[in-house]
């Protein structure tokens, strides 16, 4: 995986701007004022969920060994290459919902109007153009970030070094 969407849970206010931006990005017009009149209505691929004492936007983790890809009987779910996100070929999808059941995070849903499943495609077209995924750029507090695995790991290591230096011994979480 080249990069992934990371959530800074402490920054999320639950405003759902990511949900709205995701739906607009996956609309025909890509314009909020027109998108809300589109039929079928564009749908979001990210959902802001309430946990105990925190809110968090959930979207596809783009699993390396993705159960949805494994289970799909029509090979509608696939990766273009090993660094790409898991995407759906809507022509092939028969809406059997196996992937929805198999997904450990509940981030695949059924678009019943279009009779296909939908999931986060990490806005691969935007990323190819050098833009951030719609949810990331819409987040008003910077709770969503697009980062490489290496960056995330490096930051974690640095943070843990600071903890060690301070003698706290334990990683804060």
């Amino acid at each position: 995986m080249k990069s992934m969407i990371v959530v800074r849970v402490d920054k999320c206010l639950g405003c759902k701007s990511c949900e709205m931006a995701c739906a607009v990005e996956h609309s025909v017009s890509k314009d909020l004022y027109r998108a809300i009149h589109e039929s079928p209505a564009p749908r979001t691929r990210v959902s802001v969920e309430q946990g105990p004492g925190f809110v968090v936007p959930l979207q596809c983790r783009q699993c390396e060994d993705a159960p949805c890809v494994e289970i799909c009987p029509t090979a509608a779910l696939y990766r273009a290459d090993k660094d790409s996100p898991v995407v759906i070929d809507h022509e092939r999808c028969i809406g059997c919902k196996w992937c929805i059941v198999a997904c450990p995070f509940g981030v695949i849903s059924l678009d019943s109007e279009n009779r296909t499943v939908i999931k986060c495609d990490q806005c691969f077209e935007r990323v190819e153009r050098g833009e951030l995924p719609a949810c990331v750029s819409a987040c008003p507090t910077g709770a969503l970030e697009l980062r490489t695995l290496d960056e995330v790991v490096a930051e974690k290591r640095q943070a843990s070094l600071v903890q060690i230096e301070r003698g706290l011994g334990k990683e804060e979480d």
Partner: protein
Amino acid sequence: MGKNDDAKEKSRSIDPASQAMLKKASDANITTAWDRWDGMQPQCGFGSLGICCRICNMGPCRIDPFSGSPEEQCGVCGANADTIVARNLVRMMAGGAAAHSDHGRDVAHTLLMAAEGEAADYEIVGEQRLRDLAEEYGISTEGKEKKALAKEVAEVAFSEFGQQHGALRFIARAPKALQEKWERQGVIPRGIDREIVQVMHCTHIGVENEWKNVLKHGIRAVLGDGWGGSMIATDLSDVLFGSPTPIRATINLGVLDRDKVNVIVHGHEPTLSEMIVAAARDPELVKLAQEKGAKGINLAGMCCTANEILMRHGIPVAGNFLQQELAITTGAVEAMIIDVQCIMPALGDLCELFHTKLVTTSPKCHFPGASVEHIEFHEDAALDTAKRIVRLAIENYPNRKPDAVDIPEITEDLIAGFTAENVYNFLGGRYRATYRPLNNAIIEGRIRGLAGVVGCNNPNVTHDYGHVEMAKELIKNDVLVVETGCSAQACAKAGLLRPETELAGPGLREVCQAVGIPPVLHLGSCVDCSRILVALCNVQAEGGLGDCLSDLPAAGAAPEWMSEKAVSIGFYVACSGVFTTLGTPWPVLGSKAVSDYVYGGMAEDYGGYFAYEKDPIKAAHLMIDHINKKRQALKLRPMMYEQQVAAAGD
């Protein structure tokens, strides 16, 4: 600086003076509204669509417009998108109506004090206007001297605010057919304040839930603005300070003078700015300015209070709404004197970076910060207070840092001061004052129709671009344009308010040249949108163009709207029958029912409705198409020079 920086400034404003100051600001790391607007991106979709509700503490609630069935979703109380959107919209209407009307109340209060001799500095200049108004109010004028009559008129005007039943008096100015429409809808305002209070009550949790009725409460309040508060503000200002007459002046940041004490008066109410005009001419203060090393006192206006003193005294205008920070950024302003409305909170911190003193004068407007002086303005000591403020500006002159002064040497000439009343004289001549020639020009196809282009600036549209391009396109197509507020100032800066008419279509040009008026007429401040209503009533009453204002070949526009006042104006204009285009939509798109209504359906009830179109030229053509439809319905003659226009447009 490189090309890209210029591109940034050009994308922010079409006005070269503003571009120059934006560049200065950006070089000096000074943030402006445009930077802050960038910082606010992306703006919240729920707010933009009007589907976020913060009215009670069970919330905040919001409706997901992409859930597939937003109609079925509800907030905690059970309000659906329609109710939430309508409640939010009418609260904006109420805010705008309150602002305009409170301005009207202040003018009425000043007139009353002047009449009672408690505000001796105010003269009651417009005696004829006073007598006309008294007759309209049914007050006998016979044998009454000016002050006694003014007292009676002021008391009646005052009573309109607290009136509890019946109808506002100026409702009678509307065509009968329009009054009947309002009657049918149950939206005739009883009292100005009452309808605003009713909006606040009805939108409280658990009161009015049916979206169309929610809108009616709002419409009633805004009709109480357009045909009440704003109209009183306009008429009583004309009584107190005299009706404007066409007057030449200059506009843009270049009116600031490097060698003089620059005083800018910014805000809305003429009660303050009129006195500042008098104080700035005070010989003693002029002398003091000279003693401090300046060549004199240079007063300029900003926003609508600028329009008030422009049209009555020819005081130059420094700029419109989005130029308030840029004026300070020149480094040449000794004091910015403010009263109420559209004064950016950012001015407080900005003035700290320069020597400029920000002087707040209204008990309704304060700023935090040490550089701000609060010198409260009261009518009974008006001139003394005004002199004190101007003196403070003069004494600040030596603190000016000459190195920090950059005044863009850009100004434009304009003519202002048109009113619904003096247009009679223009068109018909002094002895045969009438709207007939205007109606005839429309009927014969010289003038296609009338357009009111009004409203604010908003960084979501390139500054002035919306106003200027729309006005140009309209006049090119023989539409006579009337403007108020920041829109009039935008077009003035672009040279459209000069008597030269080369940009006008051939029919409009002929009329403008014959009568001696510019193709874009400056009708005053934003409360003076009421003048547009009265002018339309006069055109309708002149005959030949239908029974209702909605029959007229006329349209309105607010290409760069931003304030709640603009929402109020928009709705009182549309609910008086005028099709109106908006640069950006009302925040109602989250409700299909409400948006279908305001962007179409309401025409059945009121005659007018809205459209939104960001491109001002396309929006102008929506207006032109509408005007053409109305011309067809009235069976008016085809446009006299249609073919030439088509050829010229190639």
